[in-house]
């Protein structure tokens, strides 16, 4: 029987998210005060050594991102920090849980990162549908200002820094970092060509650090307890804890924070209580729409960024969408491809036309009496071309669910 290990969610249910005093009495802002006594480089070293990898899905080293941003364009008068709270990956709701239940946790992490890269201003880009997250974050920022944790001459140290909220307005693609920056600048959400990465040329062309809500929320515990402590949790290449969100026909769908290296069996059958009465496990989609199908053969594999990659699967944002034996893989894949088709922005041709084309191929697969194998082969081939030629991660994602569905479920062929 596995257990949760709540580090990011340690205050969940124990404090009133709208009361900064509750957060402070639970030890809140002590890490920020500690960071104020550290050199920026020391903070970055600590985060690099902790091994923390981005919790938005890509899994890049959070500390290295900070280093790159802090070292880019030293002559620049502005250096920005952005929190990516545009959580839109189907099956994912971990950032909402953090923002609604303990907003100061991620804001403290963001403050520490701002110190580390010497940021001049911060922005939080929250998806428009997350009303409660926006309200709670707004309240938290006001309380921080009233306590002089935010604003001018913070806690008498001479540091001046402020954060503002920008609301998204219904676009999955704006969760992609460079597209988010375009949207934050007040434009249509069209992706930029990268490189340059935001660390070099981000918001209004200035060096910009962008991290996911959960990544920021991991920082206060790392600063208080040290990188050694953090890297002792989880697996060697994927240290720490991760919030997994489980949905579908399980007894207790919801969010669970566990050490990485946990198995799907532990998450689905121990924590989420197993399948609902009378249903049998068939598949899980890991990481959301831009994720991968897996079957029961992966139930006992440790979940980590690299461990999953070796199996042709992804950890992604931590979404686990469970399917039972009555549900059709074709139907799910079709729903995912419909989602991508809806969210494709139209800027680059491979994705704009490819997204529609794949949906058409799916219909052909469904209607085909024989020769299905040839059609699915074509589906994979077309999605591979899209992955190679599309401008941004959206057009590169279709291949993930398609290839894994074909790999693990012969019924699709």
């Amino acid at each position, binding site marked *: 029987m596995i257990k949760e290990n709540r580090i990011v969610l340690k205050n969940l249910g124990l404090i009133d998210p709208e009361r900064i005093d509750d957060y402070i009495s639970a030890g809140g802002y002590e890490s920020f005060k500690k960071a104020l006594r550290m050199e920026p480089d020391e903070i970055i070293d600590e985060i690099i050594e902790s091994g923390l990898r981005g919790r938005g899905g890509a899994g890049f080293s959070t500390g290295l991102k900070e280093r790159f941003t802090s070292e880019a364009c030293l002559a620049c008068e502005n250096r920005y920090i952005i929190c990516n709270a545009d959580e839109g990956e189907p099956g994912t709701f971990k950032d909402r849980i953090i923002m609604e239940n303990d907003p100061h946790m991620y804001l403290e992490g963001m403050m520490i990162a701002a110190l580390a890269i010497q940021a001049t201003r911060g922005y939080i880009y929250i998806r428009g549908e997350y009303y409660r997250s926006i309200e709670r974050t707004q309240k938290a920022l006001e309380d921080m200002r009233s306590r002089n944790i935010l604003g001018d001459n913070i806690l008498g140290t001479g540091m001046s820094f402020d954060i503002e909220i920008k609301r998204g307005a219904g676009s999955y693609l704006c969760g992609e970092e460079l597209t988010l920056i375009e949207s934050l600048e007040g434009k249509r959400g069209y992706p930029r060509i990268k490189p340059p990465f935001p660390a070099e040329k981000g918001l209004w062309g200035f060096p910009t650090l962008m991290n996911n809500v959960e990544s920021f929320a991991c920082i206060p515990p790392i600063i208080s307890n040290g990188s050694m402590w953090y890297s002792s949790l989880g697996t060697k290449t994927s240290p720490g804890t991760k919030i997994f969100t489980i949905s579908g*026909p399980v007894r207790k769908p919801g969010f669970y924070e566990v050490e990485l290296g946990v198995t799907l069996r532990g998450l689905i059958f121990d924590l989420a209580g197993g399948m609902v009465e009378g249903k049998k496990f068939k598949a899980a989609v890991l990481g959301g729409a831009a994720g991968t199908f897996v079957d029961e053969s992966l139930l006992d594999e440790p979940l980590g960024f690299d461990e999953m990659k070796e199996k042709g699967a992804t950890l992604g944002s931590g979404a686990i969408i469970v399917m039972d034996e009555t549900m059709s893989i074709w139907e799910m894949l079709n729903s995912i491809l419909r989602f991508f088709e809806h969210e494709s922005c139209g800027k680059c041709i491979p994705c704009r036309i490819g997204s529609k084309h794949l949906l058409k191929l799916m219909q052909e697969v469904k209607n085909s009496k024989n020769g299905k194998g040839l059609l699915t082969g074509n589906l994979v081939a077309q999605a591979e071309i899209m992955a190679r030629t599309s401008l941004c991660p959206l057009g590169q994602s279709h291949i993930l669910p398609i290839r894994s569905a074909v790999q693990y479920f012969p019924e699709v062929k």
Partner: protein
Amino acid sequence: MDIHKIMSGYTPGMENILNILHDLQDAHPMNYLPEHTLREVARYLNTTLSSVYGVIGYYTMLSTKPRARHIIRVCQSPVCHLMGTNTVVEALRKHLGVGLNEPTPDGLFWVELSECTGTCEVAPAIMIDREIYGDLSENAIGNIISMIREKSGKVKKEAGH
């Protein structure tokens, strides 16, 4: 509604356009952005009307067509789809007498499809204005609709006195 009062809460820079448009749309009883409002936005942000429309056209939460007092967003993303988006749409059609993207005759409700609302643990889910309703069945939907109808009836009555 006072367009200028709402806009003046933000500095006149393009980076504030989405926040401004959200606030203006939320303040309109029909949940949309009329052209005369957008002309003011363009003037305030020192940009063209067409570029304001250009931004709006990209984002699904913003509308340039009148909708209704309450917006019902039905999540159609993979998890909700799997757990019963179609049942939800049918139940809404039954209880409201309208399909997607059209207002009820009393101007109270407008139903539209939306992508993942990040509430997959209670799929299938809908969002009515700012609130999430999940684990939906046909009966539950009927109750929610009656509750909101009743509430807005009361508000009207009180306003009349």
